[in-house]
């Protein structure tokens, strides 16, 4: 059955613009459509009417790239828990619903245009220590470094982070603790990452503060909205690693 929806979408010309909501009507929508397909439909309609299309981030559209991310009715990635915006479908809404769509908001994530947000602060964070220092060249034979199954699983649970920024967007303090925690926890669990664990955590935490990400008050909201359900215990691991590094220094 075709659906009718009313969309209240945040329109902002550039990062200096104050921005405002515009309301659009869409008819004959297929409930099997994804949320992004609905935005595509709207943009087609806008282009046909010679209006500026709504800009939004997207890439893989299969829930693994972390590019798409908007606040849908006041919730990061919309109402269903632990999904990305591209995995949200119109069947989650009722015919005639009004949907409010806003960009992710944080001091470290300035809005570039409409729903498009500059999340390069995450890249800056990664550049400050979210990697391991190894020589380039051919990858070594994997089995030369034996890693127990449970350690590999632990590391992978943290490595599953797709860097979408929903944790920051949903946090009342705009904290990046879950993102950084996942990275620290992932690399500290593995022998390849252990060599630089102290330097890594000190640098990343300092950079996190410099980039104006807030502190963590352990409300746990980030895990609820995280598409990968990354556990808040990785934040505890971050706190542990930071304390360990500080004491060792």
């Amino acid at each position, binding site marked *: 059955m075709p659906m009718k929806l009313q969309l*209240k979408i*945040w329109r902002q010309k550039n990062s200096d613009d104050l921005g405002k*909501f515009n309301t659009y009507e869409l008819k004959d929508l297929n409930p099997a459509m994804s949320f992004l397909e609905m935005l595509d439909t709207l943009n087609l309609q806008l282009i046909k009417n010679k209006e500026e299309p709504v800009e939004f981030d997207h890439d893989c559209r299969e829930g693994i790239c972390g590019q798409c991310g908007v*606040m849908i*009715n*006041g*919730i*990061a990635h919309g109402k269903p828990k632990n999904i990305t915006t591209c995995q949200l479908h119109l069947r989650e809404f009722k015919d005639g619903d009004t949907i*409010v769509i*806003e960009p992710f*908001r*944080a*001091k470290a994530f*300035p*809005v570039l245009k409409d729903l498009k947000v500059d999340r390069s602060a995450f890249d800056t964070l990664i550049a400050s220590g979210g990697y391991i220092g190894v020589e380039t060249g051919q990858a070594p034979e994997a089995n030369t470094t034996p890693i127990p199954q449970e350690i590999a699983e632990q590391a992978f649970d943290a490595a599953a982070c797709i860097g979408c920024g929903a944790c920051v967007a*949903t946090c*009342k*303090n*705009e*904290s990046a603790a879950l993102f950084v925690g996942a990275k620290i*926890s992932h690399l500290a669990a593995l022998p390849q990452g252990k060599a630089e664990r102290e330097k890594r955590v000190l640098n990343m*935490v*300092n950079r*996190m*503060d410099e980039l104006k990400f*807030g*502190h*963590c*008050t*352990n*409300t*746990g*909201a*980030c895990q*609820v*909205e995280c598409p990968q359900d990354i*556990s*808040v*215990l*990785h*934040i*505890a*691991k*971050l*706190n*542990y*690693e*930071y*304390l*360990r590094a*500080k004491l060792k220094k």
Partner: protein
Amino acid sequence: MLGFSSTISRKYLMAITGLFLCLFLVIHLLGNFQLLLPEDEAQLQYNAYSAFLSGNILVKIIAYVLYISIILHSIDAIYLSFKSRKSKKTRYRYDARKRASKWYSRQMMLLGVILFAFLVIHFYDFWYPFKFGELTLDQQGNKDLYQLVIASFQNIGYVAWYSVAILALFFHLLHGFFSAFRSLGLYHPYYAQIIKLIGVIFSLLICIGYLGIPIYIFISR
């Protein structure tokens, strides 16, 4: 400040001072239980206990640690929430984020302000008159703090305000206790669960204990 420059270090300070205050809550409650003894016995024992506390050098040192903890815990909270306050640009126009967390975990500041106000009044009502005021003496020659406490707990308004503050304390502890351990880096999934459970039991016992005494005195005297 003292190497507490990063937000994570600030959270350590928050956690350590918070946990010390939790320990103090237990000691203070155990002392208060003497109010529940039979009336004559309670008066002498409670006043003797108060006199002992104010005379003991070790208790005095711990008291200063306590004052410093309260001040650091409060200043740190103000500093951190001031740092992460929202600007107009980062405030959501339509906000339903609250579905993802407990209300008391987001309102620690509000609960803390109620507790701070309570502490100021509490110090003014009992600590100040005991230390600097003129109190009558009991049969053993100790300052009669007991009568002052009983008189306060017979006032319905006072008991009501006291109950509000203790309820605020309950929710503050419910989030604060386990949160302190997480801030200090307890990342083990099993022990983190155990601490969470202990936190709930601790908050409940503290709440029941502190609420029970004034209500019992109000009803029985």
